[in-house]
């Protein structure tokens, strides 16, 4: 190995280091004038969804759910949460998505909307993030009918589309659903 080779490597490494620092700096630049929204990002089956952080009171680990007779399959049951009894909805059933078998990543989002609160069964919670409102696009017209009413926007997270949902509409529709 020659001195020239070493210098060349050092130069390449230094250049790479500078590039990474620049990239980090670029990523860190936030326009303070741009309003941001806090989002809770989660997966149901292979699809990614998000609720505004203001709709989610708590992210709970999977817990024992007690089924209640006479409820539709989408209403999984109830759980006891620090002196409160809370219903749990299979969110996948409402979004036309299948749920994975519950495992250690399965979670329950404690959501509040339309004047009520309920647990929402999700397969895993991926992130809680701040997103500039400008990064959220209107929902595409190609969205399935069942989702179109519930979706308020779409954004990308690690190259995957994420559908932003309105919990008020979801609860309101679920209360009205005669099925």
């Amino acid at each position, binding site marked *: 190995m020659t001195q020239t080779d070493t210098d060349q490597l050092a130069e390449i490494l230094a250049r790479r280091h500078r590039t990474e620092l620049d990239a980090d700096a670029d990523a860190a630049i936030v326009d303070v004038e741009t309003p941001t929204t806090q989002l809770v990002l989660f997966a149901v089956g292979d699809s990614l969804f998000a609720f505004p952080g203001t709709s989610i009171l708590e992210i709970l680990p999977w817990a024992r759910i*007690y*089924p*209640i*007779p*006479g*409820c*539709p399959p989408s*209403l999984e049951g*109830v759980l*006891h949460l620090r002196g*409160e*009894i*809370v*219903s749990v*909805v299979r969110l996948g059933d409402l979004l036309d998505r299948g749920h994975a078998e519950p495992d250690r990543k399965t979670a329950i989002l404690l959501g509040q909307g339309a004047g*009520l609160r*309920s647990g929402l069964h999700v397969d895993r919670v991926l992130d809680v993030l701040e997103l500039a409102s400008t990064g959220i696009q209107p929902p595409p017209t190609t969205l399935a009918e069942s989702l179109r009413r519930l979706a308020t926007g779409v954004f990308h997270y690690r190259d995957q589309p994420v559908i932003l949902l309105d919990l008020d509409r979801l*609860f309101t529709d*679920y*209360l009205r*659903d005669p099925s």
Partner: protein
Amino acid sequence: MTLSPTTSAGLDLVLFHAGGLTCAVEASLVVALRDARTAPPAIALAELLDLAPASPIAPPSQARRLCVRQGHRERWLAIDEPVRHQHAPAAALYPLPPLVATRCRIRCVRALAWLRAHDAESLAILLDPRHLPERAIRSGKPLV
């Protein structure tokens, strides 16, 4: 002081199993509890509530028959053991959560009770016998 079956401090409940779930009715609405061999034939409460059998491996015994007051008449139901009597303080009784209250299609599901027994806490579904379905939801089997 002796508590009457219903006081401001809570309710006396008769708890039992049906279709793998813990159910309860107010003790004041229970007329009798008998062994299956000595009681009149009765429809399984699990069938009335559209519940699956407790376990496919070991079918429930339904060894008990519970007679409940339903307005002016009495009605026998087949239930599963264990059966126990327990006082539920008011703080242990909960109304149905709003989504359950709206979407539950069985009127007799009235409330929920979070009870401690044998050093463990668990949920009981408080049923109002006055609003039990007349027929089994799935099979349409009439009351025996």
